[in-house]
Each structure stands twice: as C-alpha cells, then as structure tokens.
C-alpha cells in the first residue's frame, strides 16, 4: 500500500483506504514519540521546508518536531521576512525552495487552493497545513486519530461540529474524512456561519446546538476566527456564547462518555467554557501529541521511495 498522490492537499482527494493507512502508520509513530529515545532514521537524508503565510504556533512546531524526530533537515520560511515581502509570486517562491533539494514543502496560506497551485509546479511533495477556508487535512487526521484511539472506530459514531463552519478549513477536512470513515456528522452554528448547500456533502445541518448535540459521541467546538470575521455575521460574542457556546449543561445532551475536541487555540468563554475545556471529556491535550504522530506518519509516507510513489493498485 502507498499513497496515490505525490502530495497531501486535502482529505477530499483521499480514499478511505489511504486515510486508514496514514492512521495505522501514525500508531507506530506515536510509540516512537512516547519512547525515551525520540529519534528514528525514517527521514534521514531528507529535507522539509515549512512555508507559512499565516501565523501558526502549534502546526508549524508540530511539523518541525516531526521532521526532526525522524532525522530530516528542516527549515522554516516565514512569509513576511522573505522575498515574499518583495512581491515574489507564490509559484516563484515555491520553485526556489524546490530547487534547493527540498523533499517536502509544508505550506500554510490564507488563500484556498494555494497548495495545489504550488504542487503542480514543484517536484517536492506538498503538504497542505491549511489553505484559506478550504482544508486543513493534518488537523482532521489527528482529530480522527484521537477519536479512534478512544473509541476504536469512527464507524457509526455521531460527531457534532459546532460553530463557525463557514470559515473553517478544519470543519471541511473533518467532514470529508469522517464521512469517509462512516461517521454520522452533524453541524450546527449561526445561519450566517454555515456555508450554502453543506448538506450535499453528506452531513446533517442544524440551526440549534441542542439538536446537534443529542446523543453525540464526539463534539468538536470550532474557534470563532476573530481575524477572519467580517462584521455583521453575528451580533456579539456574548450572544454567540449564549446560543452556540458549549457549556457543561449543553454537553449533557450528548452521550455520557462524549469526547470533546477543539483544534485550538481556544477563545475561553466564547465557544467553550473553561470548565468544559479543562473538564473530563476534553481531549485537547491528546490532540496536540497525536498531531506530531500523524505528521511523522505523513512525512514518512510521502518521502518513502525517494520521493516518487507507486500508484496503488
């Protein structure tokens, strides 16, 4: 088994088998990560460059540590401090990085489709670390990994994704991934923060949080992306928290052993109350650890065979 493409651009493009294969590999990587000697030779002689056009702490660090634990040479390009600030086009920047012998380019970009644009123009494998409102596939993979670790499977589970779906690449990637693995995905949020015709992706769309939460096995709160918010999508944070925030009382509508996930960083008291964030159901810390394991798995799978991949039969 191998991944079909040279790149990981989104979960929409992946088959169920490919997703499961990545998750299986991540299990092994997690053992490495939890061992005393966090050093494997999987990426020895390979190089990984992270190219970030948006701020990020956890995702960038997670990729960087994942490459280092596996022995890769890694470097970071922060968009504002490079030739990007001089007006260089994205393709030119990516080609320059490609020409330096880079095996994997990890890109985060505020515009949807930027990773696929560079993937078509470079030899290196491209991993999408978040593109506009489109996808954030490694986040969804780590979310799914975390759920399966606790529940054994996603098949038949009810997953409620609550909040600003419209702007959320995390929601989109999770919808693609989770529905492929057999979960029943429900979403709820203010009508102004739901993208049109979302139900055609196979999810159930609710206008109240309560309906979405009933008997849920997994609840995922999404960050209100204040930096992306155009005014007028909802009246105030106070009103948002009142009608769409997750508190302990609302969480009781879900199953007793519900898992609570959040891609972070959290706006405490807005989408989640502090007691929920730090409560017994919360897996927010595990998500971070699993993120490194999933990224190790992906870097390994994409750089195997010297960067060129067999087509899966």
């Amino acid at each position, binding site marked *: 088994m191998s991944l079909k493409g040279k790149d990981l651009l989104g979960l929409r493009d992946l088959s169920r088998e490919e997703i499961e294969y990545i998750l299986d590999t991540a299990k092994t990587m997690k053992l490495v990560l939890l061992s005393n000697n966090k050093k494997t030779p999987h990426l020895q002689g390979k190089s990984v460059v992270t190219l970030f056009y948006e701020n990020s702490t956890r995702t960038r660090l997670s990729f960087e540590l994942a490459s280092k634990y596996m022995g890769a040479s890694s470097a970071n390009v922060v968009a504002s401090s490079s030739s990007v600030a001089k007006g260089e086009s994205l393709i030119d920047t990516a080609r320059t990085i490609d020409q330096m012998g880079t095996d994997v380019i990890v890109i985060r970009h505020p515009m949807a489709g930027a990773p696929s644009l560079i993937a078509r123009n470079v030899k290196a494998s491209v991993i999408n670390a978040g*593109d506009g409102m*489109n996808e954030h596939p490694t986040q969804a993979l780590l979310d799914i990994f975390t759920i399966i670790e606790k529940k054994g499977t996603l098949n038949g589970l009810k997953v409620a994704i609550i909040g600003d779906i419209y702007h959320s690449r995390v929601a989109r990637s999770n919808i693609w991934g989770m529905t492929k693995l057999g979960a029943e995905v429900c979403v709820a949020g203010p009508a102004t923060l739901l993208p049109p015709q979302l139900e055609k992706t196979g999810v159930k769309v609710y206008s109240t949080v309560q309906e979405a939460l009933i008997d849920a096995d997994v609840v995922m709160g999404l960050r209100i992306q204040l930096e992306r918010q155009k005014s007028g999508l909802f009246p105030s944070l106070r009103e948002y928290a009142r009608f769409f925030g997750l508190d302990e009382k609302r969480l009781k509508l879900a199953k007793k052993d519900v898992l609570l996930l959040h891609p972070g960083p959290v706006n405490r008291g807005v989408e989640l109350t502090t007691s929920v964030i730090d409560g017994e159901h919360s897996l927010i810390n595990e998500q971070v650890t699993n993120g490194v394991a999933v990224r190790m798995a992906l870097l390994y799978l994409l750089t195997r065979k010297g960067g060129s991949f067999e087509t899966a039969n």
Partner: protein
Amino acid sequence: MVVLKLLIKNGHVVDARTGRNGIFDILVDEGKIAEIGKDLEVDSNCDYIDATGKYVVPGFVDAHCHLRDPGYEYKEDIESGSASAALGGFTSVACMPNTSPCIDNQEVVKYIINKAKQEAYVNVYPIGAITKGQKGEELSEIGELKFAGAVAISDDGKPVKSSSLMKKALQYASMFDITVISHCEDLDLAEEGVMNEGYQSTIMGLRGIPSVAESIMVARDLLLAEYTNAPIHIAHVSTEASVALIRFAKKRGVKVTAETCPHYFSLTEEACEGFNTMAKVNPPLRTKRDVEAIIQGLKDGTIDVIATDHAPHHEDEKNVEFNMAASGMVGFETALSLIVTNLVNPGILTIEQVVEKMCLNPSRILGLNKGVLEVGRTADITIFDINEERVIDVSKFRSKSKNSPFDKFKLKGAVYHTIVNGKVVVREKVLL
C-alpha cells in the same frame, strides 16, 4: 489596390431581417452587396468562394468585448483583438471602456477609431463610460462621446452603484439616443466573492458571489428604465432570476434588451474544480438551473443577444492563487463553435435565430447599420460550417491571450471565411 468583385457561390444564405433562407449566390462589388440570386455568373475579374454546404450570414457583431487598448496592450491590442475577432467570424466589435485611460472622453474614442482604421481587421466601435473614470460619481460627457463615435455607454466591470446616478444616466443618454449597457452587480452582496456562491464554493472553501448580487441589480435597473422610459441593455446575464425579471419587464413594456455569453450556457460552477482560474469570470459561472434558464431565455427571445465578453488576460494573471487571478476569458475564437454545439445542434436555436442574436439585434441596439444581408449594404459576411468537428487548442489562438476554459474541448462548427467591407479577411480559416 484593385478591388476585385467577389462571388460567393452556392452557400445556404440566412438573413434574419429579410427572412431569406436558402441556397443563393452573393455578388460583392466595390465593398457592397451587389446582387443576391441564383446561378450568378463568375467572370474572369471575379474572386470566388465556394460556399457549398456552408452557411452564409451577415458578419457577426459583438456587442461586448475588451480589446485592452489603450493601456493593457500586453493582454491584447486593436490589431490582435480584431484579428482574433475576424477568425471567430466577427466583422464588427464593440469594445468596453475599461482601458487605461478609460474611454470616458472623446479623445480616447478618437484614438481607438483612428488606430482601428490603421490596424484593425474588422470594424471596431468604442463604448464610452457612463461615469468619469468609471468611478460611479459623475456622468461622463455622454454627448461628446456619442458624437465622437461611441455606440453605447457602459461602466462594464463595475456597476453604477448609486441608483440616483443611474437614473440620471438613463435620462441623459436617451436624449442622445445612445443605449446604456448595465453591468449588474451589487458589490455589497458580492463582497469578496471569487466564484458563484453554492455547493462548489462551499467544498472549495472559496468566498461566493450569490446569484442575487446580479439579479437584485437587474431588478433595480429594469425599474429605473421603466421609470425613465429609457432603453437599457443588460450585459452578461448569468442567473435564472435575471432571466425571469427581464421576461417580466418586457411584458410590462420596458425598453430592455439583454445579452448572455457562450460560457453562461456552456459551463457551470463545477468548471472551477481544481482551482481552475481559467473558469474565473465575472459574473461567475453558475449552476445547472441557471444554465437551463439562460437557454430557455435564448429560445423564447427574452435574451436578445449573444456577446462574447472577450476578456483577454496574461498568463501571469491567471497562473496564480484563485483569489488573485484576473476574471474573464477570451471568447472570439470559440463563440460560434459553442453556439453550434450547445444551441444549434441540440435544436434550441435555428440558424436564423443565431443570426438574430449575433447580427441583427446587436446592430440595432448599438445603432449600427449592420447585421443584414441585402443588396446595397456594406458586404460584411461570415461563412461557417456546422458539421466540422474541432478540438480547441488555445495555443493556436490569434489573440495575445490564451485564457480560455475550453482548451481541448471537442466542439462542432467552424468559421471558414470572414468578409469585412467586401474584403476577404479570413479565407479557409486563415487570417490574410
């Protein structure tokens, strides 16, 4: 240069105004149609085109294109744009004013007309701006534009945001008997959208332009046209609701005409899949339901004109992030094939209706003495075949720009000969 006579033999002549529809010969002499009849004689001093098995129609008139000259000659200029038009069977084109400088004063109109006299392969008619600098603030010198040669006024690319100013534009322009062409878009609703708002924008994570951003402005402009009793022409209609509103307004007697473009009856929002910037256009490609309504509107006459909205852009403006990519596509060299493939062959439009929408109606709206095959008229003639299959190859386009979503499409229908003012400009698909 000695001007020879030209005899077009045995073609299927279709003319919408005279109702002529059958096999005829056409004799062209001194740039004019000298005779239309059966079995006309060829003499030794006569050039000759065998049109057997082909349609012979009035030269196509494009009511909406962008020649990018002056200011953006790296995308297109009058020479290259008119050459591309001729290859597409167009003998007259009306170019939009969003040039640099903008066509908002008579000097730019004169520049285009003079340059076209020297370089153009087809007749070029400038469209003036409604407002100075297309800023939507003050009316441009509409009377002077008209007298310098502008055939319509439009702020195409942008709406006239102020309803009050649009009302004044309609009143003022109708005094000079010049049509206002409206680009209908509510920019508040369109926000920062880059494609149609719908399922496709949802799954691609791109901001959408809702169809109502167009339709709401169509409704406003129809009401203003009714109120002022002035003519209005709605540019590039793309939505189901716009078609319904125009149909309704026509019933009420509003002096409205409307156009759509080949891409709005040939493609849907799905063409954007894979962040395909070639399919980025404004208004955006819509849904199947909209396409069906556009086709119905063409069939029942609600939509009077098929225009290209030929909008050349450089490779570097398209090979970028979808959000950053320029909107628009080239259209001259694919228009006829898309019409034949998607409208004529499926039985939606007859050739006579195509002639109405490509020749007669645009000429009337722009006040041109064109679009009719009749003795004594200037010989602007297009000859095409509807059975020939062609595979679109954008690299072969004569336009400077290659931004078309139809690359590699297999289509039916090809322009063979284009005759402008009695002169053969395209012969056997080759620009002379």
